[in-house]
């Protein structure tokens, strides 16, 4: 379910790092909690993001949620197709519904979790 080569935030974003570039999206758990996603606001090209800071919003029929950047750096690419097909986020959150790519300006945040840790974190959250 959760790719082993990704890192995850406790705010339910995923990060896939390739060299100096990180691809970011929201997790399967997040899309499931939100339900049918109908609207998205992503950071613009060239935006400077800071790990842990708000950088966009995802809206489902019933709720709005902030996206917090899990990494620091400059946005180099945005998946603008999601503006027209936000339902991809429900259908394939870890794949074609990637949200943006960032040229990293700092080492990865040490609060990011491995897949195994993230799954344990989800079980813990559900237990409450």
């Amino acid at each position, binding site marked *: 379910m959760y790719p082993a080569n990704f890192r995850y*935030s406790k*705010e*339910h*974003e995923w990060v896939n790092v390739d060299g100096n570039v990180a691809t970011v999206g*929201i*997790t399967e*758990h*997040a899309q499931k*909690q*939100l*339900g*049918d996603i*109908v*609207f998205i606001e992503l950071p613009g090209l060239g935006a400077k993001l800071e790990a842990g800071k708000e950088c966009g*919003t*995802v*809206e*489902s*029929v*019933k*709720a*709005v*949620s*902030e*996206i*917090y950047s899990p990494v620091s750096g400059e946005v180099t690419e945005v998946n603008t197709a999601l503006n027209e097909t936000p339902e991809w986020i*429900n259908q394939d959150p870890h794949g074609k519904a990637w949200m943006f790519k960032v040229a990293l300006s700092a080492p990865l945040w040490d609060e990011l979790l491995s897949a195994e840790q993230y799954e344990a974190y989800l079980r813990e*959250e559900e237990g*409450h």
Partner: protein
Amino acid sequence: MSVLSSEPAALRKTALNELHRKMGAHMVPFGGWDMPLEYTGIVAEHMAVRTRAGLFDVSHMGEIEIAGKQALALLQKVTCNDVSRLQVNQAQYSGLMNDRGSFVDDLLVHKFSDEHYFLCVNAARREADFDWITQQNDPGATVRNTSDDYTQLALQGPKAKTILQRLTSVDLSGVRYYWFARGKVSGAESIIAHTGYTGEDGFEIYVPVADSERIWNEVLEAGKDDGLIPCGLGARNTLRLEAGMMLYGHDINAETTPLEANLQWICKLDKGPFLGRDVLLRQAQEGISKKLVGFQMTDRAIARDDAPVWSNDRQVGKVTSGSYVPYLKRAIGLAYVPTELAKSGERVQIEIRGNKAAAEIVPTPFYRRPKS
């Protein structure tokens, strides 16, 4: 991502609670109840009701029965619609009024007989309504809170009648819109009301609590080939909003009158005295300062409940219900605005997370079902 979490703290449960959980519904607290928000997803459920059929457990809704020779007198006193116009087996949408002419609740009044009426009220208002009616009962009718006696199912959608007909010998084509019949559904004595809260054709069925699970399953089975699916309160909300229907606690409350809420059609000011009538008469003569209107977003944004409404750099009102709606595929909502702005085509701005987005006042209902 910060995601909504559901806290199951001492919530009330309907007779179908366990079944909803077993069927994989996503449960959330609503009005003090642990209720299904969605099964397959709000969009799929909304579209099923608009195009085929959906089944909702709405047993959180309350029932209050008024009986005795003074039943009519009491109802005429506490509601704004004219109960004397009801015939036996007919239902009426109305407002339970306080003495300021605003809403204690909105409700459906069903006439069983000249001396027996059956009210369907909102979940979170069961006790408040019962207490208020009892307090106003100087006519001396019998008032009973019978909420725990019924499971209420809403079967809604263009296929609802065909599906329900398979389970009852009552001839449903003889039950006109906003009328009801008493008869058996799946062998259990029920009230079959041709009413709904979706803007679609359909029925609200009050069945004995003991038969809840069996009837729920039999209705789903009877509608399987017609594309009937179980639905949650998420779709119920988007359906009613698209149909321009009020939600108590949001669009109407103890500070808003039926005239302000654009519900003059349920205010029968000439029926004789009732609670708050003087306020409503004055509003009818002198006019009102605010009015509930429908809007649709023209900028790409979704207005949610409580978002401030702006006009000419002045905050003029608040959104009372706002959402993206799946059939129209638009962001729409209801809001109170000053009467001078309450005209179709008027432009306003709605503040969403600190930014102002453009919206246009439009006529309601946003959606009207095709004439069958």
